[in-house]
């Protein structure tokens, strides 16, 4: 059991990093509470896996420290940390049975045989592997193998956190849902901290209590799925989470008035953009825009309407900038001009990509 703290942690694969772009992981501070379920979400190459490998001790950070329950473990080797990791491709010991696979981490740590047996059976029950304990691990399907990798982490009584590195990549789609549900159940039963790396937002949002969104080696937002949806702290979060993503429009803001070309929108609060900001943008999710709802809406050009089955997505253009709007299934638009109005509570101002509070 462990609370994990990262202090001023950064990593570069280059020997002498001099500028920010040399860092695979830019300096960050973070705390993962004991028993929490966290997801590290971000596109490929954003540093998620590097962060994970640093926490599991496989990679030593260029700077900063890692604390487990207040104890500095930055310099400890992997096998001394109470961390388990499940990899993208199932790693199992081919020649062993399922039972021997699960017992392996305990055997290496010289746990007495009777204790191993009890623990292996307990974990097998948790993972629904009881009937397969005697089988060779070699011939099993990918989802079973992934469960075994997870089991090898759970079996250790001292394990404080289990790290998952995109563990469902090679699993068949219909098994993914099952495994996710099982993972959630196991988490509730075991009270182990889980850190889950993925680039699939659905996966992140369903598994984790808190999602950490990373972009270009930086943590851009930590929050609950709802927070990420309603108040994206960075335009990247808005764009990456949600389908379709948040609309981002270049604008000028003065006080509580935003100007988009010739059009004006009154904000529900006064906003002061930080001095020296190069780029001011408005962010609004397609869910919070209405077409033809109000007579005083901004006129936009309707390009086309896509029907997803549950709702429609209208693609419109405002001052040459494309916007997506979600409309109910039964809504109809006549002609190619519509009047657009927004839910001001959900209209956000971004300066150089970052949310402006106010």
């Amino acid at each position: 059991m462990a609370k994990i703290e990262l202090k001023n942690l950064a990593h570069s694969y280059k020997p002498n990093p001099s500028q920010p772009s040399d860092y695979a992981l830019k300096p960050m501070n973070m705390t993962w509470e004991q028993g929490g379920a966290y997801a590290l979400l971000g596109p490929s190459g954003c540093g998620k896996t590097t962060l994970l490998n640093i926490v599991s001790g496989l990679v030593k950070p260029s700077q900063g420290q890692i604390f487990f329950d207040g104890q500095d473990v930055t310099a400890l080797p992997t096998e001394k940390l109470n961390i388990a990791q499940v990899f993208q491709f199932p790693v199992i010991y081919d020649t062993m049975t399922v039972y021997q696979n699960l017992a392996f981490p305990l055997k290496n740590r010289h746990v007495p045989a009777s204790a191993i047996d009890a623990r292996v059976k307990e974990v097998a029950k948790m993972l629904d592997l009881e009937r397969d304990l005697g089988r060779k691990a070699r011939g099993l399907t990918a989802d079973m193998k992934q469960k075994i990798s997870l089991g090898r982490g759970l079996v250790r009584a001292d394990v404080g956190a289990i790290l998952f590195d995109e563990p469902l990549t090679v699993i068949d789609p219909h098994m993914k849902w099952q495994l996710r549900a099982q993972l959630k159940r196991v988490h509730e039963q075991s009270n182990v901290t889980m850190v889950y790396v993925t680039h699939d937002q659905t996966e992140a949002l369903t598994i984790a209590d808190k999602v950490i969104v990373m972009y270009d080696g930086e943590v851009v937002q930590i929050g609950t799925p709802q927070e990420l949806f309603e108040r994206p702290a960075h335009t990247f979060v808005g764009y990456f989470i949600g389908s379709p993503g948040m609309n981002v429009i270049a604008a000028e803001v003065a006080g509580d008035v935003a100007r988009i070309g010739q059009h004006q929108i009154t904000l529900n609060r006064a906003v002061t953009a930080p001095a020296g900001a190069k780029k001011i943008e408005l962010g609004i999710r397609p869910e919070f825009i209405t077409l033809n709802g109000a007579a005083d809406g901004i006129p936009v050009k309707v390009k086309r309407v896509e029907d997803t089955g549950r709702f429609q997505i209208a693609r419109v253009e405002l001052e040459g900038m494309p916007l997506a709007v979600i409309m109910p299934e039964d809504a109809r638009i006549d002609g190619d001009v519509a009047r657009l109005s927004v839910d001001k509570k959900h209209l956000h101002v971004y300066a150089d990509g970052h949310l402006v509070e106010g």
Partner: protein
Amino acid sequence: MDKPIDNRAWFLALPVVLIVAFNAIVPLMTVVNYSVQDTFGNNEFFWNGIGWFQELLDPTTDLGGRFFDSLGRNALFSAIILAIEVPLGVLVGLCMPKKGPGVAFTLVVMALPLLVPWNVVGTIWQIFAREDIGLLGWIVNHLGIDYNYTLGPLSAWITIVTMDVWHWTSLIALLSYAGLRSIPDAYYQAAKIDGASRFAVFMTIELPKLRRVLLIGVLLRFMDSFMIYTEPFVVTGGGPGNSTTILSIDLVKLALGQFDLGSAAAMSIVYNLIILAACWLFYTVMTNVDADRDATRVEA
């Protein structure tokens, strides 16, 4: 789909049939022909039936005794070099650098012995191991160890075994190296997390993953060492006495030295069958390993 059938197409296969006939079937049939006949010279042949084979496979006769002696020596030679080259090759493969400028250098150095022609290898060792002018033989003798491969059977054996190890361990090392390189990093990382010792990593990850390349390596080395002729012939010529006369050397003595065509032909055929049988055995073992794997997969 209807395919036109024209049996004249068989003529197109004729060149291949002819080539195979002239380079394989015809020579083999002459050997079979000799093996069932006897001759006293003057190109006169007498029908001998399976007489040569009976004599050859009966250890109490002169011919049989000599055949089983060289067969035994051959088996011993193969067993010794396999027992040395396979573990040593794996060990070398484990020690070879995985990245950096050393990789290309090591690969070239390891491949060098494999590129030396057999009779050159034999000549190198024939001179290298001589007790009068050879560096190795001279040093060993001056260290006070009695070593002379032309006089002592043990010295002769040590020489030809060392020579084969020098020549062919690289093959196993390169095969293992390739096999080891194909193991994904995640396996090593998982083993680290599971707290596995270096030895446990070798036993549970590396060795199982190397099994298939090693089977091929053992097959190649067995075949080669069982048919080896040039190197020991150049170094010891089968001596001292008959102590390093293995099957191939014995066969040449019988066929070209004594010109006993009948018994030599019979010996060739039996020699050939032994190698075919060994091939078949290895093939069966290898396919069974795969079948075992497939069976568990189907079950899953």
